[in-house]
């Protein structure tokens, strides 16, 4: 007898988005013929496949269909009138002198100056403006690394791409300041937000950047973010994602990296809070002697859900990659890690490592960690490991015998666990800031409104810890 699989019905939003694309084409199909055609193909792909469902292996542990069944507003144009954007984006990192680029619900905010052009040739700003001002550059890279056939969300994002952050670093240029791109999701309505980032780094260029996704209220939202990164020969990218969203928000943030010979990249996804967050890092190592580090830290509690997907593609010989993911799941939270290392036939002398370590605080918390190696070359060094554990009873006892109470001992051990990923942060002020945020998060003091001046927060619980964790 055939086993009947439960039919998954696509949300109404799917049809609405297809109609919206058809009716609002002037927003999308207006530029380069290749990209226009790609949008058409992408929406056709989306119409056929819809949103990714749990029937897909890569989405088995993460259901977004239910989250898409709300009545969302899809904004076609920026709406900045009701918001004081100056106040909204005040950065609280004291010694962190960054070049800040702001987005509200996926739209670039500073319309007085949509593209900043620096003397050294660096261009940073709105992707929408770059489509107009740098059509050749955008054409050369857009959609080349994020394949819309990857899934319905990437296809949808590709078809609908309007705005996001565009960064171009010319050959041999080292960007001194850290680039910080902040997207704030804030609307009175349930909002469906999409944006697209395109980062192009020339030969032997260097840059560090922080990509923040924040919410400032408790409203429901769904964000579909796709970022493309191209690193030419010898380029060096130090990239961080910092996510602090409310418990009603869903974020799918997929990053596609293509890196060339002698290049070096590091990406570190730090998930402090969010209802449902999925991070994807697709790395194609396409030139020899390149290195890719992919790190992640996630702290989830209540009913939160976090999913990290990594696809590390060693296409050529003599490259190295490292993956380290650490997460703590409390209450009924659910954490997922799926890491795949692909070593292709010609990728001899590859060294690829992967490690996923998780702590389940309660027996109601769920962790699914699945490492996966696919190796077609014979001279390689690869390893993977995935652990799910509890806080060490012996360590708890040890700390308590020094006069420290149960809650503080637990906090100390959770922090000690997370420190392994925090140590990987190379930007000192950011490291201190994240260190501080992680401590706040573990103490239960972090609010989604932590950086917001609107003072609309309603913290559910307040904790007091005696422990002095200022400079642990």
């Amino acid at each position, binding site marked *: 007898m055939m086993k009947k699989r439960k039919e998954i019905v696509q949300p109404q939003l799917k049809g609405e988005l297809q109609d919206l694309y058809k009716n609002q084409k002037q927003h999308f199909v207006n530029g380069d013929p290749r990209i226009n055609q790609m949008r058409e193909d992408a929406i056709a792909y989306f119409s056929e496949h819809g949103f990714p469902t749990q029937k897909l292996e890569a989405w088995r542990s993460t259901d977004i269909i239910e989250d898409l069944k709300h009545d969302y507003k899809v904004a076609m144009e920026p709406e900045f009138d009701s918001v004081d954007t100056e106040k909204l984006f005040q950065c609280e990192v004291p010694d962190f002198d960054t070049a800040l680029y702001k987005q509200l619900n996926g739209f670039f905010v500073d319309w007085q100056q949509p593209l900043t052009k620096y003397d050294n040739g660096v261009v940073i700003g709105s992707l929408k403006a770059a489509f107009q001002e740098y059509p050749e550059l955008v054409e050369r890279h857009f959609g080349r690394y994020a394949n819309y056939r990857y899934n319905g969300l990437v296809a949808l994002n590709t078809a609908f791409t309007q705005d996001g952050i565009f960064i171009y670093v010319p050959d041999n240029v080292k960007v001194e300041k850290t680039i910080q791109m902040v997207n704030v999701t804030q609307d009175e309505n349930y909002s469906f937000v999409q944006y697209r980032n395109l980062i192009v780094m020339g030969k032997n260029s260097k840059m560090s950047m922080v990509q923040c996704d924040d919410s400032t209220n408790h409203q429901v939202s769904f964000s579909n973010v796709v970022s493309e990164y191209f690193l030419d020969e010898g380029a060096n990218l130090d990239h961080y994602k910092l996510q602090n969203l409310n418990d009603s928000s869903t974020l799918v943030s997929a990053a596609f990296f293509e890196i060339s010979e002698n290049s070096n990249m590091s990406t570190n996804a730090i998930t402090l809070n969010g209802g449902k967050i999925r991070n994807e890092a697709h790395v194609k190592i396409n030139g020899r002697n390149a290195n890719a580090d992919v790190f992640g830290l996630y702290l989830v509690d209540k009913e939160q859900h976090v999913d990290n997907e990594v696809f590390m593609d060693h296409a050529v010989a003599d490259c190295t990659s490292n993956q380290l993911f650490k997460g703590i799941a409390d209450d009924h939270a659910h954490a997922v890690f799926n890491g795949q290392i692909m070593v292709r036939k010609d990728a001899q002398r590859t060294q690829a490592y992967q490690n996923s370590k998780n702590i389940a605080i309660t027996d109601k918390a769920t962790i699914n960690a699945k490492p996966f190696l696919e190796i077609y070359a014979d001279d390689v060094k690869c390893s993977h490991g995935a652990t799910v554990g509890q806080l060490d009873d012996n360590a708890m006892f040890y*700390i308590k*015998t020094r006069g420290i109470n149960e809650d503080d001992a637990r906090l100390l051990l959770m922090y000690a666990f997370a420190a392994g990923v925090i*140590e990987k942060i190379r930007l000192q002020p950011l490291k201190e800031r994240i260190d501080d945020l992680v401590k706040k998060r573990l103490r239960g003091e972090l609010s989604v409104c932590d950086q917001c001046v609107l003072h609309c927060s309603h913290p559910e619980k307040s904790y007091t810890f*005696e422990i002095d964790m200022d400079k642990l």
Partner: protein
Amino acid sequence: MLTIKDLKVSIEDTVILNNLNLEVKAGEVHAIMGPNGTGKSTLASVIAGKDEFEVQEGSITYMGRNLLEMAVEERAREGIFLGFQYPVEIPGVSMTNFLRTSVNEIRKHKGLDKLPAADFIKLMNDKKKLVEVDSNMTNRSVNTGFSGGEKKKNEIFQMAMLDPRLSILDETDSGLDIDALKIVAHGVNALRREDNATILITHYQRLLDYIIPDKVHVIYDGRIVKSGGKELAIELEEKGYEWLKTHEKAL
């Protein structure tokens, strides 16, 4: 200071300590010796408050209070210190801040204010000198990457910092070379006062060449079968634990 009466302790239906009695007075150093697996470490853990052991019968009184009703951290704040046989590594937490938290918790319990940073550093430097530990140890994460000897010295250093009333050192001498052993012994001797007490748990008589105990107890099969002065340790060393077993049968 500490009175243990008719103590019966089990773990998962296996009785480990049975009918154990012990009296420790202020100013005394007691050595508890015995073969492996006879319950020495269990006794240390039960006094410190490890909850995997079940106390089925008997009582432990500490400073006139029922110790068994006190939480692990409360026992520590009331002056009980356990030096671990296998100190735990806590990566990411520096020794300095771990100790500062610990010292301030104990001070708070005594109704004292937090120790100002400068005073804390001075205290740490004084105690480092007293127990002869390396100054760089305190900059490292708790026990992380420490050698066996460093971990044991670190236990003595913590003991010095927390200034306990009753210290229980569980096999602190095991795995130490003679130089490290001397440092540990020197630390214990330096901290010895009229108003505190120490219980040394050891398998070998060697440590007792450097720390002279007031009383020696031999634990066998979950209870103290013989008590005496320091000469008992020497006798035990000469005749071996086999002697004890025949002695036990004869009893």
